[in-house]
């Protein structure tokens, strides 16, 4: 089983993801350069957080044209797994690999803090080890995490159970007080309809070691790893 972490110019959580996968999870992990086309046999590709191209036009707007994105698109069609975290999520949206868009945060500035998330769907390879409705603690750090999509599309998303994480309070309260950025219906992470592409604003790689104060993010990586183990790579 192999994971790949993509490096775009301006990625800055690439090493953090690499460290968690290779050292904490002890998984074979390779670097993928944005100009590469070869995904080197990865079972899961991680698009890390950061500021690809400085986020100078729109978050993720320029990175989406990197050569590797064409390979990733194909990989997705073939049933490969993709995890986009923060800027990675933004790139997935710009690429159309996930639906919707991210607007600037409601309060107009960057926000870095721990948030509570409710796991809304545990029937995905990324979340199978969480219990339904479990409340987890994972930090966010972004300027544009305000999830938006037209109403009809959102209904569709809900119907398909594609909303995977929602911001909530420590006891699972899903109200506006615990919405850190103004996201529609507190959406923090969504998946593709086949649950093989997951995009989320919170940073699981920052919550994967006891010394950093939370290990809830580790469960996400572990979920996917166990799924891949049980399904031998799982590509169909």
């Amino acid at each position: 089983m192999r994971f790949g972490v993509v490096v775009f110019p301006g990625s800055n959580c690439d090493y953090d993801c690499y460290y968690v996968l290779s050292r904490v999870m002890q998984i074979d992990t390779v670097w993928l350069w944005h100009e590469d086309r070869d995904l080197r046999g990865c079972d899961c590709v991680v698009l890390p957080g950061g500021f690809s191209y400085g986020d100078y036009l729109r978050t993720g707007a320029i990175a989406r044209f990197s050569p590797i994105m064409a390979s990733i698109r194909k990989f997705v069609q073939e049933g490969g797994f993709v995890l986009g975290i923060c800027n990675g999520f933004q790139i997935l949206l710009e690429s159309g690999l996930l639906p919707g868009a991210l607007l600037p945060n409601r309060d107009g500035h960057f926000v870095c803090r721990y948030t509570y998330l409710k796991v809304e769907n545990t029937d995905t390879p990324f979340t199978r080890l969480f219990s339904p409705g479990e409340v987890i603690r994972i930090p966010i750090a972004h300027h544009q995490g305000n999830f938006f999509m037209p109403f009809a599309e959102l209904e569709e998303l809900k119907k398909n159970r594609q909303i995977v994480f929602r911001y909530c309070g420590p006891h699972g309260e899903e109200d506006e007080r615990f919405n850190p950025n103004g996201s529609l219906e507190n959406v923090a992470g969504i998946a593709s309809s086949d649950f093989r592409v997951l995009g989320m604003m919170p940073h699981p790689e920052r919550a994967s070691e006891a010394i950093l104060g939370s290990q809830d993010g580790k469960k996400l990586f572990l979920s996917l790893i166990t799924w891949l183990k049980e399904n031998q790579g799982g590509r169909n």
Partner: protein
Amino acid sequence: MEEIERISEELGLRKEEYQKVVEILGRVPTPTEIAMFSVEWSEHCGYPHSRRWFELFPRQGHFPALFGEDAGGIIYDDLAIIFKMESHNHPSQIEPKQGAATGIGGVIRDILGSGARPIACFDSLRFGPLEDRNSRYVFRGVVEGIAFYGNCVGVPTVGGELYFHPAFRGNCLVNVMCVGVAEKGKLAQAVARGEGNIVLYVGNKTGRDGIGGCSILASQEFADGEEKRPSVQIGDPFTEKCLIEATLEALATGFVVGVKDMGAAGLTCSASEMAAAGKSGVELDLDRVPLREEGMEAWEIMMSESQERMLLCVARGREEEIRKIFKKWGLEAEIVGKVTGSGRVTIIHRGEVVADIPANELTAPPVYTPPRKRPTYLDEVNSLSLQSLPLPTDYENVVLTMLSSPNLCSRRWVYEQYDHMVQTNTVVLPGKGASVLRVKGKKWGIAVTTDCNPVYCYLDPYRGAQMAVAEAALNLSACGARPAGITDCLNFGNPEKPDRYWQFVEAVKGIADASRFFGLPIVSGNVSFYNENPRGTIYPVPTIGMVGIIEDVEQAVDGVFKEEGHIVVLLGKVREELGGSEYLRVIHNLEAGPLPSFSLNEEKALQELLIELISGGFVVSASDVSEGGLLFTLLEACLAGECPLGVMVNVEPWNSLRMDAVLFGEGRGRVLLSLREENYSKVAVMAQEKGVPFAVLGRVGGRDFLIRNGREVLVALPVLDLKERWESVLS
């Protein structure tokens, strides 16, 4: 001939300096040469007024120290920890967002230039009163700028300081610090050596940014109608991020002989200092420098302070390999010259030699020691008599009033705008005391803090500076770290005014004496003079940035109460003193000394005790008593966690003293602890062995912040309310 003297004067060179230049060159200098001397000998770059005093600073300490061109550090285990503080005061006052942003960019490149990977930034900020519209604009812009740059570049901003005072109206202070880590054998140097080696320019193109003093040159000597005004530097964190990765990758090849960032005085500074450090010469062809604007003159190119640029000296024959790395990261990488054996900096533009200067002369600016005089205000402000001061009748009211002082409220609104977690090393997050970073793969960790109280330094620059060192050291010990080294940023008014210069020299002596006493080397620093305007000067601010080592990073503690039932203890003496306190300022509208008593010996004993207590795992939280006194230290311990906790404290043991002094006095040498019941006697014994006074204050618990004096309740306020107020002052 007369013309060139006039340019020289307008660029800020003194008459005798001009004469010296003529002597050095043995001829009349060219405009480019004048421009180069003027920037290289400026206060900004050459430190003519301050340099000689640095000899007072200790260079050795508990751990081996390192001194580089732009940054210094200490060695621990097999790593070098490099750190440095910089000011960006003037640019931030003019254009807050970009000024602060480029300040962060600059200090990161200082660290990068030593070959270290930048792992954390700090911002120590001072502004005019928050009620002032302009001060608020500057404050918000600065925070935005640090967030804009620091977040994008992927170096976490994990701590800092924030202080508001009328003395900084019109002259804000933006001091930024960066810490980096490198393998100790793989540090880079700012040298150019080896005749025939290549000088490589990398990073952003050169524009007319920040050509400050040169505007005069532009308007009178070279301008033919067209506008060549200097422009504000704009930060480009994306390019900086790529520059970090590419530079570290280039250094890892082993083919880079030397590297230096182009910061203050741009190409002039990097070329001449690299040549001087390598005892070699450098020849640059300006026609090969990537330019952003058309028609730039040689002096403009030499003085430009365009950001995100570095100069490399590369082994001959390896230049293409190195260029390829920078190109891969999308950066400019042009061969602009070569190393010579001439000992001179030779500049060629449009086929002509426009400057030819001995490198060692250019980099050896004159030294000045202007007259200094003890300011007259000192006697006046140091004559506080407590007898005449009325005691508060309502302590709750006092607490609530002080709570809304922007100097005592929560800094959450600021640090949540900074990505303080990227790189996943931040073990103690901002807002809880000193910041603690792990080092991946190591058991040990790094603790960092910045400190300086401007009012203390105004009332007594010598002791104020000593107290800043002591406070920083105690901040670090209070998380379990052994203080290891210092960087400083000395912010003062005009050094040519005798009272300002006196303040400066006193502060330097204070830092030197305290750090020598504690065994702390001063490995790097920065001086910012002329922080004044026609309405007045700033308070003296010798900011201390301190780095410490914590042997087992898992043992690190912060200053926040963790659990109901824990015992709250005070280490150190309570005295009847209020000098310099925020209480006097906010409640009595008084800024008065003498400063509280303070003993280096007591500080040292306390530091040692804390390191032992924490490494033994005997305490749950620890924080030093500083601004706001005992009461605000308690309050922060209650409120700074995710869920606030109440506390029940009884101050009866000190009821023979003035209660306001007990609660709000800022006497140094005190630390607040919380402990588990079972460790109580152990801690008491250890404190006694070290001769540190030890007293039980009360217990963590309840919903209220409850302070009693015997049976009399002084303060009883619900912590949830307090937290909300405390966190909403800045937003």
